[in-house]
């Protein structure tokens, strides 16, 4: 049973992330009255890309070649170290939220570097926009999780999760809800979703994330795409397990694992539906209006922290 649990803990993010990307796309397609591709299409896309040859610019340096591995590896490490379906690994896995945020930043750093490495104009402004956005998004991201951390007196993600679980439905429900809202904005920004970026666009001049990986093809592109899917699932898992940890497995029995996975899937699907519906009902924001939204996330988090300190 322990082997099964460990397998799920380590492999859940990379194994399942393409599926949830597929589900978001399917929801968007249905919202637009299209049939849309099958939800397993992202797996086929990855398989296709892994079988393709690459074209690498002659101006590319080692940074361009190395970056996809680093970016992908970062998401694997983060994905293995966050609460997924059970809190039992909390004492074994060193899981610190500050470490998580800076591991994410490490991945973003290499992604941005790879964008400017070849010297194409699109990669350059993709990286410049990504750095601008992620620098501003970081405030909201850190502070929203920090508020939970202050509440639970720990920076360990499993610790936070089990504390929030123990709170049940308390007077903190409202502040946790607010912090979740701030986190959600950061989630959309960090994952290049609406209203920050349009993951489905073909317009080079408007791209952020896609512009950075525009020069990649074949296997390295597959890694970049997969890493982006992993990152999306990591954020969804954090949102589900830090803010709403109910249903997480209390023991390592088969029934409890299955029910935890079932509840987790339901939570992830709700969040995917939220992203899909959001992307079908609003337009992308004007680029210079994005910082306003990110500051909102930051300010809400700051208010939440103040409230928590007051209540405690």
């Amino acid at each position, binding site marked *: 049973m322990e082997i099964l649990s460990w397998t799920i803990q380590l492999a859940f993010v990379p194994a399942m992330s393409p599926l949830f990307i597929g589900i978001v796309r399917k929801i*968007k397609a249905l*919202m*637009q*009255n*299209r049939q849309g591709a099958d939800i397993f299409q992202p797996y086929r896309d990855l398989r296709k890309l892994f079988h393709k040859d690459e074209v690498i610019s002659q101006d590319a340096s080692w940074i361009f070649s190395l970056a996809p591995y680093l970016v992908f590896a970062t998401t694997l490490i983060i994905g293995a170290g966050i609460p997924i379906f059970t809190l039992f690994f909390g004492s074994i896995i060193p899981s610190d939220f500050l470490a998580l945020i800076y591991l994410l930043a490490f991945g973003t750093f290499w992604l941005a570097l790879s964008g400017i490495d070849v010297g194409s*104009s699109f990669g350059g*402004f993709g990286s410049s926009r990504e750095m601008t956005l992620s620098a501003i998004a970081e405030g909201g991201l850190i502070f929203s999780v920090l508020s939970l951390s202050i509440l639970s007196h720990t920076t360990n993600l499993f610790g936070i999760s089990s504390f929030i679980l123990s709170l049940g439905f308390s007077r903190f429900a409202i502040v946790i809800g607010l912090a979740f809202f701030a986190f959600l904005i950061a989630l959309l920004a960090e994952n290049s979703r*609406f*209203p920050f970026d*349009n993951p*489905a*666009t*073909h*317009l*080079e*001049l*408007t791209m952020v994330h896609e512009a950075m990986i525009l020069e990649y093809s074949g296997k390295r592109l597959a890694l970049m795409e997969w890493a982006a899917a992993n990152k999306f699932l990591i954020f969804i898992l954090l949102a589900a397990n830090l803010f709403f940890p109910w249903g997480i497995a209390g023991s390592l029995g088969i029934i409890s694992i299955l029910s935890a996975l079932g509840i987790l899937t339901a939570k992830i699907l709700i969040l995917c539906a939220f992203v899909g519906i959001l*992307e*079908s*009902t*609003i*337009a*992308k*924001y*004007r*680029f*210079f*209006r994005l910082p306003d939204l990110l500051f909102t996330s930051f300010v809400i988090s700051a208010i939440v922290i103040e409230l928590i300190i007051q209540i405690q």
Partner: protein
Amino acid sequence: MDYKQIIEQYLPSMSGAKTYGNLIMQGIPVENIRSVINHLYNERKLPLKFITATDERKEGNGFKIIYIFGIPKENLFLAPYIQLKETEDFPSLMEAIHAAYGYERKIKTFFGLNPINHINPAKMILHENWPEGLFPLRKDFHWQSRPAEASAPYVFGKVEGEGIYEISVGPVHAGIIEPGHFRFSVAGEEIINLESKLGYVHKGSEKLFEILDMNEKVRLSERISGDTSFTHSLAFCQAVESLAEIKPSFRAKYLRVIYSELERLANHLNDIGFIMLDTGYSFGGSNGARLREMIMQINERLTGSRFLRGVNVIGGVTKDIPPQTSGDLLEELASIKKDFSEVINIVENSDTLLNRLKDTGKLGRQIALDHGAVGIAAKGSGIQIDARVDFPYAAYNEINVKIATEETNDVYARFRVRIKEVFSSVEIISEALKNMPEGELSENSAKISLKKNCYSVDIAEGWRGDIVYFVATDADGNISRVAVRDPSFVNWAVVGHAVKGNVVPDFPLINKSFNLSYSGNDL
């Protein structure tokens, strides 16, 4: 007004004016042309529709440069021209009329005539691999000759300053669109200057018009800009009909109105959808595509062609709309209109969408006027211009058309103009279907003969703006010159002004709000 009055009114103390149908040609001595044109344009406020040239050296007339003005509300054209017999230089009119800039450069490129005092008489449309001193629209250039490949450098304008850098985009773009190269000079995200380099789809269409036989000419006019097949061929057919003195029946005229409005509907619905899609508003995007498809299927059912090709012929149209179909069409249009209003009600309440459209890509009214902008670009900047009202061709003189304009100059204004025109097109089609008289579809065009040494000008309002055709015949009554002015040719000049000061990620949206044709510009 008859011709005499018009000549007296606009060109007093001139003699030797000739009238060709609705076109009045008046030779002007070269030294007087500046003052005459200045008078017509700046004092009489006549709209300059086209400046083009003909090579009549064989007939002993040298080159002619023809300045075509329209006389609004009359469907009449006044064309002063100059003859260049001994010289290849002609005075540039740029100082008095900014709109002459592009036309004169084009004459320079294709006829090798030099506009004196033009600020930038550089080659356009033809690329660096085209040799110097070879002018494809001169009669001594054989259409099948293959010039030696040249490689002249192309120099983009330079913007210098701290933190200014260049972004080069295209000619090949992501997505299935036509090719064109854009060079942005930007400070951070803000666009300081945009230089567009077009000409990648130059096909020698104007030369081809001189070679092909008549039916092929009509087919070629349908392919000048594929999304405007019907209105382009309509303008061409009308120009030839006036040369052949053929008068299409009223039924044909009404059918032409109906088909050109269907074309407008399809393209506007498509653009409305794409403008929204470019902001990432996928609800609007997919609805635009859906509504456009409904019109395209109507087109196919009525004519067998989604793009209404093969419908126009010299002397009329080939496809009728029988009474029972007409009833169905009315019902269908009413339901599309209802459907469209529902969609528009939803999108007009989307803050995020309106925030992207409003105040983006402002095109100042004066800039639009100075460049002679036409169609949606001009209407969005509050200019009342529409060939259906100004030069009522086909059956438009019997139909009530209201010019749709907006005053805010931005992407939203051009978006709104399209929405208004969708509603008005539905009205026009319904009115035309109800009032359509009986009659022959087309005159027998098998043995048409054109008047000799004759000229004709025709204008039709395509969905982008007015399309102008100038057609000339030689001493044998064969077509010796067809000059085409797609609205894109004039409107490309204003896109660069509209994007200034906007951020780079808004360029695709602004560009889409104009949605100009590359093919129509490059010919």
